[in-house]
C-alpha cells in the first residue's frame, strides 16, 4: 500500500473528529492525574490543525510540508506539555516525508518510528514513567520487528497497535514519574495516563484508517 498526501490529510481529519469525541474522556483521566485539560488541549490543537487542513494545506501535496505544518500548528495552538511532544513527533516524521507526495510502506514505517522516537527524545521519559512513551516505545519496537519478520505493513501496524494498547494499559498500574502527575506518588496508581491514551487513539485511528480507506491508499 501507499499513502498519498490527500490520504495523509484525510487521516489527520479523522484524528480531528476522533479527538472531539474523546475529549471529555481524556479530560476525565487528566482530572485524576493532572490538571484536567488534556482533552481540551488536544481539541484546541487539532481544531487548529483542521483549520490549516481546510485552508493553507488544502492544495499542498508534499507530505513533509503537511506533516511539519501539522506539528507546528499543533504546537503554536497549545503549548503545554503535549504541544512540544506531539509536535516533535510530527516534525520528525516530516523529515522522512520531505518532498514526497506519496508515502510507501517503508516511508510509513520510518515515519511512525521517527514520530515515537521524537516524542521520547523531547520528553526524556522512559518506559515505566507513566507517559505517552509507554504507548509509543513498545509500538515502535513492535512495528520495526514485525515489518522485518512479515514484511506486510498492515499486519505489522496492527501488531504494533496491540503493543501500544498493552503499553497504554500498563500505565494504570504504575506510579507516575514525569509530568504533573509525578507529584502524586501512590495516588497515581489505578488511573490510566491521559497522554498514553491519546497516543494510543491516534495510532489505532491510523490503523483503522488504512484498513477502511484502501481506496484512498493507493
Amino acid at each position, binding site marked *: 500500500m501507499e499513502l498519498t498526501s490527500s490520504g495523509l490529510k484525510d487521516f489527520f481529519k479523522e484524528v480531528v473528529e476522533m479527538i472531539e469525541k474523546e475529549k471529555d474522556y481524556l479530560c476525565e483521566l487528566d482530572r485524576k492525574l493532572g490538571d484536567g*485539560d488534556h482533552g481540551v488541549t488536544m481539541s484546541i490543537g487539532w481544531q487548529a490543525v483542521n483549520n490549516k487542513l481546510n485552508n493553507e494545506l488544502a492544495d499542498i501535496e508534499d507530505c513533509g510540508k503537511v506533516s511539519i505544518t501539522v506539528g507546528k500548528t499543533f504546537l503554536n495552538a497549545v*503549548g*503545554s*506539555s503535549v504541544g512540544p511532544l506531539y509536535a516533535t513527533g510530527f516534525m520528525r516524521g516530516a523529515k522522512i516525508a520531505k518532498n514526497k507526495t506519496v508515502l510507501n510502506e517503508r516511508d510509513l514505517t520510518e515515519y511512525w518510528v521517527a514520530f515515537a522516537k521524537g516524542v521520547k527524545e523531547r520528553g526524556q521519559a522512559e518506559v515505566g514513567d507513566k507517559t505517552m512513551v509507554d504507548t509509543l516505545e513498545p509500538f515502535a519496537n513492535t512495528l520495526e520487528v514485525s515489518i522485518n519478520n512479515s514484511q506486510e505493513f498492515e499486519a505489522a501496524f496492527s501488531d504494533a497497535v496491540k503493543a501500544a494498547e498493552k503499553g497504554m494499559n500498563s500505565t494504570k498500574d504504575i506510579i507516575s514519574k514525569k509530568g504533573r502527575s509525578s507529584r502524586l506518588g501512590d495516588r497515581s496508581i489505578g488511573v490510566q495516563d491521559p497522554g498514553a491514551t491519546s497516543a494510543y487513539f491516534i495510532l489505532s485511528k491510523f490503523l483503522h484508517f488504512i484498513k477502511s480507506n484502501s481506496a484512498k491508499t493507493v
Partner: protein
Amino acid sequence: MKKLVNNPVNVVEEMVEGYVRAHPDYIKQLQSNDRALVNARETKENKVGILIGGGSGHEPGFLGYVGEGMADGVAVGNIFASPSPDPILEVTKAIDKGAGVVYLYGNYAGDVMNFGMAAEMADLEEDIKVGMALATDDVASAPKEEKDKRRGIAGEFFIYKAAGAAADFGYDLEEVVRIAKKANQNTRSMGVGTSPCYLPQTGEPSFEIGDNEMEIGLGHHGEPGIEKGPLETADKIADRLVNDILADIEITKGEEVAVLVNGLGSTPKMDLYIVYRRVEQILSERGIKIYRSYVGDYITSLEMGGCSVTLMKLDKELTDTIDHPVNCPMFVQK
C-alpha cells in the same frame, strides 16, 4: 460553575484584549503574535530583558507583572498550559536590548519544553543570549533531596521581584540569573486547597473534595497534594504550612524573611489576613524577623479556594530587590 465569559473557547484572547485596552500606558501586544505582550515603554538599552510566562488562569500571574521593576514581557499560554515557543521567541526579540534575556517560569514539564525550545531558537536563529531560572518553591511537590523536581507556585512572585530588580540595577545576564536562582533557593511555599476551580471549556471541577475536607499541598492547577485532611482552622492550617516550610529550610533566630500569604482565587482577604496573623505569631515565637509582607491574590487558579504561604529568606542583596519599586498594572510597590 458560573463564569462571566462569552464563548469559553475565547477566554484567553478576550482577557488579553481587555487587559491591553485597560492599560495602554503599561502594556502592548506584539503584532507578530497576540500572545506576546511587552511593556508599553521600551526596555532600557543594555538592560537585561526579563521574560515571564506560563498558562493563563493564574492572574495577576503572569501578564499582570509586566512593568517597571519586574518583567519586560510575557508569553501567555492557554488556561493552565505553557505558552508555545512562538510567543516566547517574539517577546525575546522585542525585549532584547543587547544584554540578553532571562526566562523565569515554573518547573512544569510543558514550560520546560516550550521555554527550552524557544531558548534554543533564540540562540540559533536570533543570536540572543538567554538565561533561565525556574521556580521550584513548592515543598509539597517533592522531597527535599529532589528540590529540582519541585514545581513552582506563588514563590514565583519573589523570583520575578528579585530578577526584575537585579535587571533594573543594571546587572548583567549572569548576575541576574544568579540572583533569580538565589531567590528561588531561598524561597519555600506550601498551600492548601479548599474548593476547586472550573476549567471554562469543560465546566468540570479541577479536583474533587468533600464538604469538610481540604487538600494539603495541592498545586495551583489543582494537581493533588500530599494528602487530603479534614478542614482545619486557619491557625492549624498556618501551623502546618509554616512548619513544613521551616522543616525544609533553615531560618534561624534573628534572620529576616519576606512573607507572602497568597489567595488562590475565591478566598476573601479577610481569611488571608487571619492566616497571616498566625504566620506572624509563629515567626515571632521563633525570633524570625519579617522584613515585608504581601497578603492577597498574587498567583491564583481561577476561582479556586485556599491559600499558600511563602517565605523567602533574605540577605542584604535580596532585601534590596524586595525594596525596589515596581509599577505593573496588577501590582504596584512604591
